[in-house]
């Protein structure tokens, strides 16, 4: 397994809510990443953003891990929730809140601080 793939898997496993996106939560570079981020914010999720544009290899390795071909990808406690459409749909139905409560505990909003994580080795 490549080092990059290991780092991606670490983020997926360790972050309560990992959003692999184009850009960062502070500077979103794609409408679909923005849709997923908005739905997560509205649900009060503690989002950790990972910018896949930092290196084309990230997207390749990520899709190999998840079996999901497009960006963004949302993981909660290590489990793929879906892309922008699913996250938005779950958000609109209220199901997203239920999933977050089930996986992170009822008080998940308490630590709803946005972070960014890098999967690249510092130069």
């Amino acid at each position, binding site marked *: 397994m490549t080092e990059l793939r290991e780092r991606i898997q670490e983020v997926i496993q360790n972050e309560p809510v990992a959003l692999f996106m184009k850009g960062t939560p502070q500077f979103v570079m794609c409408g679909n990443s923005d849709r997923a981020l908005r739905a997560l914010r509205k649900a009060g999720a503690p989002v950790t953003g990972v910018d896949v544009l930092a290196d084309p290899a990230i997207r390749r390795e990520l899709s190999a891990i998840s079996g999901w071909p*497009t960006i963004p990808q949302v993981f909660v406690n290590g489990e793929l*929730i879906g892309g922008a459409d699913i996250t938005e749909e779950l958000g609109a139905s209220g199901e997203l809140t239920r999933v977050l409560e089930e996986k992170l505990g009822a008080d998940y909003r308490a630590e709803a601080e946005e972070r960014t994580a890098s999967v690249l080795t510092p130069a």
Partner: protein
Amino acid sequence: MATEPLQKLLEHAFPDASELRIEDRTGGGDHFQVTIASPRFDGLTLLDQHRLVNEALADPLRDGTIHELRIKTKGSE
């Protein structure tokens, strides 16, 4: 890419679809909205429903023909 080849792939994967639409969202031939209603989705999670659509369009997704894909799935109920 025109929508017809993608429509064919989807029709092949979902022969029993009661609704199957693909729209070119921007007119540029690479941003698509797919809407499918099929009994194949019954009992599946939203994630697995979208996986079936992604699998049907795996080739155009892989080679970059599809730059953006929006999916709306419905079961038979």
